[in-house]
Structure formats: structure tokens, C-alpha cells
């Protein structure tokens, strides 16, 4: 049995990061993620790690680049506007093939948006986290516990792939307090430092340069290697929850907080005899294509994309798998206005009873 605590999602991410081996954090304040840096500011020194409140988002992500190059498990966190500022640095991490954990506790957008929660950064997270056509694996937990589990192992993926990992969680889940069970501290020694790290310690042969600058043919081969990595993710690393799909006539696709609220609505609709199920992507990239592609479209009459953003951003990824075999509906709230149980229930009910067939 792990250790149980009543924690905010943000604090749970911070503690799970430390237990997963994080020993460096740099960031710059922004709501609704401030509990992450606040927590790490006292927690990291307790375990011999380093915490820096940078002078800016850009400086912070580049400090993470430096720490990671030394083989340290390093992370930064922010919310939408700050992630945009970090985009250059994240792209450089990908170019230099450096692992890192980036956390986006998302809020309303675009621009300054709203400090209230929203799921408005799906496209940024999955399509273009920075320039240059790279991807990061994107984890989208829907509870503090799942955030703990995913963050705890984030560096295993990041170091395996030598690529940053993004955790995308809305400000609601970041600020909700729930009970979590914490895993033990990972015992990492110097021997666990990645082979490629710029360590100067005795007995190691590895000295060298880590660079995001390559000659053209080498850059091309690095691009191709990244492409192979993304393909492997699709085969091996997709995480998805499939809920009540066996007889479902309508299938909700929702992640994060939207999936929690949708599940409550689905349980209520099931009690009333409506055959509704749900596909919940836990990894947004790689996207759970097979789950949507392999639905029995002789039975499924509609897909309902529920997101806490307007317009829905997952819709194109869903459509590429549905291939016009049934209509795709969408429901959402946006701008910092929250989804709620009754709202999602009423929206789904209207669709399944034929009140809305315009997609």
C-alpha cells in the first residue's frame, strides 16, 4: 500500500514528479498551475534537487534544457500563454533529443484568455507544441491519482525516446483536491544517468556536445528517426479507457475533466435506458485511433465530442477514424465557464433523442 494523501491535482503532480526522480524545476508563475512551483520550491531542496523561479518562461525552459543535458530529470510547468512562450525551448529540447517533463495546466484562451479552467490547448499540445514538426507524447489524466501515475513514469518514456513528454491537464483538475495514493520514491543513482548525458564524473568516457544544430543530411536522418519513434508510440504506447462500448449506440469521446462529467451523465442516461458509452483518450498523442476506427458502425448512430472548449478541437482526429460512417456531434463550454453534470446530460440526451441531428 502506498501513502494516501488529500491533495490538489497540482500538488499531486509535483510530489509524483519528485518521487519519479525529478531533481530540477524552473518555471514562472501563472494561474492555475502555481501550486506546482510553490510545492516544488520547498520539496526539491528536501531531496537534494534544485528549484529556480526563472525571470521568464523562456529562461525557465532553457534552464530545463541545461539540466536535462547533464542527465538530471528536469521539468517545467505553466498554463497556455506560458506554454506558448516556452514553445521555442520545447522545440529545441526535441531537436537536441533531450528528455523533459512539460506540464500545461490549461485555462481559457486564446491570448491572455481567462484564469479559469478550460481545455483549449489540445491542438497546441498534439499538433504543434513548437515549430519544426516534432511531437511529444501527451498524457491527459482525468484525476489526481491518474496524474500521479502518469507523471511518476513520465521520465521513463522521455529518456527512452530522448524526447520531451507533455502532461496536459485543465485548471479544474489542477485545483481539485482528491485523495491520492503515492508511489515510493524511485531510487536513482549516478549509474542511472543516461549514457549520453554531459556528465563530468570520474570513470566515464562520455564527454561531448549536445546540440540542436545539425548539418542537413543529419537533420534529415534525425527527422526520420523521430517519425519512426512516433509510429512506435502508436503501436505500443496508446493509453485509452473504453467505457460501456459493447452495446453503445452513441459514443462520447472526451478526455480530462470532460470525461469525468460525461461519465456521470452516461451513468444517468444508462439508468434511463439510453445506450451511451465513452472512449477516453489518456494519451492524446498517440491518439487512440483504433478504439474509434473499430467501433461497429452498423450499431453506432453518432459520436459525441465533449470538451471544455468551443469549438471542439479533437473533432478532426475523431473524424479521420470515423470516416463519415456516422455523424459527429459536439458539446462544450469555453472561456473559463465550466462543464457541469446537468449540462452534459441534457446535451447528450438531446442528441440521442434526435433533437439535434445537424452534427
Amino acid at each position, binding site marked *: 500500500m502506498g501513502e494516501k494523501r488529500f491533495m490538489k491535482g497540482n500538488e499531486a503532480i509535483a510530489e509524483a514528479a519528485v518521487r519519479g526522480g525529478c531533481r530540477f524545476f524552473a518555471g514562472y508563475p501563472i494561474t492555475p498551475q502555481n501550486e506546482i512551483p510553490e510545492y516544488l520550491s520547498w520539496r526539491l531542496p528536501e531531496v537534494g534537487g534544485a528549484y529556480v523561479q526563472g525571470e521568464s518562461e523562456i529562461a525557465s525552459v532553457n534552464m530545463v534544457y541545461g539540466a536535462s543535458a547533464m542527465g538530471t530529470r528536469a521539468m517545467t510547468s505553466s498554463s497556455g500563454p506560458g506554454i506558448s512562450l516556452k514553445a521555442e525551448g520545447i522545440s529545441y529540447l526535441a531537436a537536441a533529443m533531450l528528455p523533459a517533463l512539460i506540464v500545461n495546466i490549461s485555462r481559457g484562451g486564446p491570448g491572455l484568455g481567462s484564469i479559469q479552467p478550460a481545455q483549449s490547448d489540445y491542438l497546441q499540445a498534439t499538433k504543434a507544441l513548437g515549430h519544426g514538426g516534432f511531437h511529444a507524447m501527451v498524457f491527459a489524466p482525468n484525476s489526481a491519482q491518474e496524474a500521479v501515475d502518469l507523471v511518476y513514469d513520465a521520465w521513463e518514456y522521455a529518456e527512452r525516446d530522448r524526447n520531451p513528454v507533455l502532461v496536459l491537464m485543465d485548471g479544474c483538475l489542477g485545483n481539485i483536491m*482528491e485523495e491520492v495514493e503515492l508511489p515510493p520514491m524511485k531510487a536513482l543513482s549516478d549509474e542511472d544517468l543516461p549514457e549520453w548525458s554531459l556528465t563530468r564524473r570520474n570513470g566515464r568516457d562520455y564527454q561531448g556536445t549536445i546540440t540542436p544544430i545539425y548539418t542537413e543530411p543529419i537533420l534529415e536522418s534525425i527527422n526520420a528517426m523521430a517519425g519512426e519513434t512516433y509510429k512506435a508510440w502508436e503501436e505500443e504506447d496508446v493509453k485509452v479507457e473504453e467505457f460501456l462500448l459493447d452495446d453503445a449506440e452513441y459514443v462520447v469521446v472526451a478526455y480530462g475533466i470532460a470525461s469525468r462529467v460525461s461519465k456521470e451523465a452516461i451513468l444517468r442516461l444508462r439508468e434511463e435506458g439510453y445506450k451511451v458509452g465513452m472512449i477516453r483518450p489518456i494519451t492524446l498523442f498517440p491518439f487512440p485511433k483504433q478504439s474509434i476506427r473499430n467501433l461497429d458502425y452498423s450499431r453506432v448512430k453518432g459520436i459525441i465530442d465533449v470538451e471544455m472548449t468551443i469549438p471542439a478541437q479533437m473533432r478532426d482526429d475523431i473524424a479521420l477514424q470515423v470516416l463519415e460512417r456516422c455523424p459527429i456531434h459536439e458539446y462544450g463550454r469555453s472561456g473559463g465557464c465550466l462543464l457541469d453534470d*446537468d449540462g452534459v446530460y441534457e446535451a447528450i440526451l438531446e442528441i440521442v433523442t434526435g433533437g439535434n441531428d445537424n452534427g
Partner: protein
Amino acid sequence: MKQSFVFTGSGGQGIMSAGITLAHTAIDMGKHATYLPEYGPEQRGGSAKCTVVINDDVIVSPLPRMCDNLIVMNEVALAKFIDDVKPGGVLLINSSRIKGKIERDDVRLIAAPVDDIALQLGDGRVANIILLGILIGATGIVAKETLIESLKDKFKDKKPQVLEMNIKALDAGIEIGESSH
């Protein structure tokens, strides 16, 4: 059974603290609980709201539209949230600050001048604990003893008088809550 609580008022009135304490106590009793704070950029005086859901089973959605219990500390919050309590639910108001007529006749209304009572006890800051006491007395949602344990933990680094004052406030609230049946 699933029960939802929405605490509303302005920053500095102990809204968040009351919500966390309630949720924490429920967890300590072996129940499941979620706590969601919502507030503006102001440190004091802005709108403050938190939602607590308590359930015997795992909580699926932490975002109910309508709550079973609405706790309101001032008139601004009352105007904003009065429609958010379910018919038959509990509407608990701070009558030290809410003087107007309550435009709901389908709820169980409990009005108590918690600011005045807190001042009479000797510390205006315990108004929120009086509200928690009223909720316990009126609904039995958590056990008094477990809540006191939670307060002990919360105030473990403060002078013993702080805990004593909070327990006095809790008792005063429970008495009001019990007599509201």
C-alpha cells in the same frame, strides 16, 4: 449517499478553509470527497466559491450544476448563486450580512447571524466554523469528533487558544443546526 456543498462569499471570509475542512473530515471518516476552489485574481474581497462533493463511493464528476447544500456569506453571493441549490436542499445564510427577503420557498432555509455570533465568542474569524457546525447539526454529514481532529491538525502550529476558539465556534454552530430541525 452523494451530497454536494457549495460555499460562497468573498475572499477573506474563510470560504475555502471551510470547504477544505469539510472535505478533509469526510476523507478521514473513510468517505470519498472532492474540493474545487473557484476565485478571481483578487487576494481579498473578490468572489470566492468552492464546491465539495462527498460520497460513499468514488466520485465520478466533481462538477454538479445544482447542489444539495448552499452556504452563503453575503448578499452579492446570494444574488449570484441562489438558483444553484436543488429544491428541497439546504440554504444556509449569514443573516449578519443578508437582510433582504429570500426568494426561494422550496428549500430548507437556515438563517444565522454567524458574523455577530463569532464576534460575541471573541473572534470574527471563526464565522466559517460556526457555519460548518450548523451544517453538521442540520445534516449530520460528518462527525463532530472527526472534524475536531481535523481542526487539531490544521492548527497544530498555533497557540492552543486558536483550537479552543474554533471548537467553541463549532459547538455554537451545532446547537443552531440541531435546533433547526
